[in-house]
């Protein structure tokens, strides 16, 4: 099983949202890491065939997904960034509706819906209207519907938004427990989600895939660029303004800054092992400033 993104581009008037992305994705969990406006959502929509690429094509098992049509959608599970729902439907009814859209038989749909609602912790509120749900509950419902048809290709756009830490751990465990014969692509700003569950990380910036690799391989990009500095008082503001500060911790009268920088920020700075968060800051702090 393979998903092949073959020179995918998407251009809107003057803006290039996806810029010549070529990826070969086999079974595994892929974390798509990028700042707002990097092109993650557009790329995911193209993979789901609800956004037309300006150039290139997406192939599933060597067949163009637009030609496969129903056959491809039958193996696809999608959770959009902004999850739409029907306020007056109950959670259970909503699952049954989507199950019927996914072509599940009546009996299996009931069974699967209840099972998934149990797994995401919504069993007790299954007969309550969705409009009464909190953000976290909605997100869990979204995750549940994406799993209805036991998809082989799962595309989850910011799936952990609105989830509290306990729910995020549960989500990570759920994704990790999915059988290894699935292709799971999820996007997030929350670096720890990627660190814990992604087999491979795709770093996306300005529509391009900057890096692809295992977390430990990716972080090598910023090896030698992460520093810990101990500063005092008014100096803190200067360093924060001048450098990319990933963490700031007060220790007595001193403040320990974790700085991501190509050059050594001060004589006494100590080089430390980089993390994925440092990589994110290194690549996306500029994008954040532009926005």
């Amino acid at each position: 099983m393979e998903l092949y993104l073959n020179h995918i581009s998407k251009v809107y008037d003057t803006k290039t949202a996806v810029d010549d992305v070529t990826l070969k994705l086999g079974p595994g969990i892929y974390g798509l890491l990028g700042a707002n406006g990097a092109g993650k959502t557009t790329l995911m929509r193209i993979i789901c065939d609800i956004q037309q690429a300006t150039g290139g094509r997406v192939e599933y098992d060597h067949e163009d997904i637009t030609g496969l049509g129903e056959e491809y959608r039958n193996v696809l599970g999608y959770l959009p960034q902004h999850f739409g729902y029907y306020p007056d439907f109950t959670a259970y009814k909503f699952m049954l509706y989507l199950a019927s859209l996914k072509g599940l038989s009546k009996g299996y749909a009931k069974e699967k819906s209840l099972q998934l609602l149990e797994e995401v912790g919504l069993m007790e509120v299954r007969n309550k209207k969705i409009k009464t749900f909190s953000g976290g509950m909605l997100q869990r419902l979204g995750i549940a519907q994406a799993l209805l048809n036991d998809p082989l290709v799962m595309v989850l756009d910011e799936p952990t938004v609105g989830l509290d830490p306990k729910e995020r751990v549960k989500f990570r465990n759920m994704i990790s427990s999915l059988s290894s014969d699935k292709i799971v692509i999820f996007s997030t700003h929350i670096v720890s989600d990627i660190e814990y569950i992604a087999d491979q990380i795709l770093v996306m910036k300005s529509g391009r895939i900057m890096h692809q690799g295992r977390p430990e391989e990716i972080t090598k990009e910023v090896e030698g660029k992460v520093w810990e500095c101990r500063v005092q008082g008014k100096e803190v503001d200067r360093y924060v303004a001048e450098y990319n500060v990933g963490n700031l911790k007060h220790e007595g009268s001193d403040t320990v800054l974790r700085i991501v920088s190509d050059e050594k920020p001060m004589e006494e700075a100590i080089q430390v092992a980089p993390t994925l968060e440092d990589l994110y800051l290194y690549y996306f702090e500029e994008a954040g400033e532009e926005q």
Partner: protein
Amino acid sequence: MSRLIGFELEKICRRKIVWAGLVALIGLNLVFYIFTAMPSMGVMNDQGGYSKGAGAIAVDRELTKPYEGVLTDDTVKQILLDHQEKIEKTDFYARMDYAYDSVGKLFLDETGNYNGLSVKELYGADSSHREFHYARGEQQFLGYMPMLLLVMGYFLIVALSPVFSDEYMRGTDALILTSKMGKKQCAISKVTASLIFTAVVAGVVILVNWLLMVLFFGTEGWSMSIQLEMTAGDYSGVPYAMTMGQTIIYAVLLWMTAMCGLTGIVVICSSFAKSSFMALITALLIYTIPLTLSSLSFEWLQRILSFMPVIMSTVGSVLQFPLVELGGFAFNFGCLPMLTMVAVCILSFVVTKRVFRRKMV
């Protein structure tokens, strides 16, 4: 797919505005019925006895009996004479004079006297255009139903505009279009559900009112020539032999196909529109503009307008045209708008499926 259709029907029916509209429609039907139909009847017989509602029908029918049959000049003169005698007895006695209301008025001049016209001059030599019978119930039915159907059209537009456009607004289109049946069967289900909704609403309203008519008045008025009907609408110009019963059948078919065709138009608008509001406005314009143009008396325009759902609902405007002759076979012009609306329904499946399938989120 039946489950999908069920869900789509449920989505239509869950909206509070749909139920509010249904209640308003039923309320309007009651108002029309109570104030213009059988409950509003009050008839006095020549002994001074007064009957109301259903009880008035037998008296009303009895008073009309002397004039039934092929309308002649003598019958007309008798109707006018008897009406004058009724007025002299009491105004109230003359108030519900079916024969006078249906026929007599056409034979009066400005001073209220017989204008000397003959029935052949007015209705033609063909006696099949002059068959007079007691058709009060049919008159009432054809009188208020067009207005009710006109309002029903607006109700359907409000109820069905969000069928597709709501999915775009809510963001549920992303989930639907990435599902196995989302790009084809879903659109078909939506249109099917919309048509079922329309057929049930229109069908029940028409059936209930038709049953009330038949229950209280029977069907003896069905053999009356439609050209003699002046109160329910202007049918005097219908240029071929047609009875009241045939007119009612055509009316029901015109109403049902008009409402179904309107449904097709509304769902097409909904599939294109980015918001339910745009779908609503577009559908409202398509429905209402022909009504505003209908006052222009160009025959070619009237023919074109008769293909529009709102004009089809009026019935009389459609039936006024001569029979259509095709390959030696003549048929009612009204069949053409009906067939067109059926084609619109079929087209709505094709168009909405195509538009929805290609929708980019």
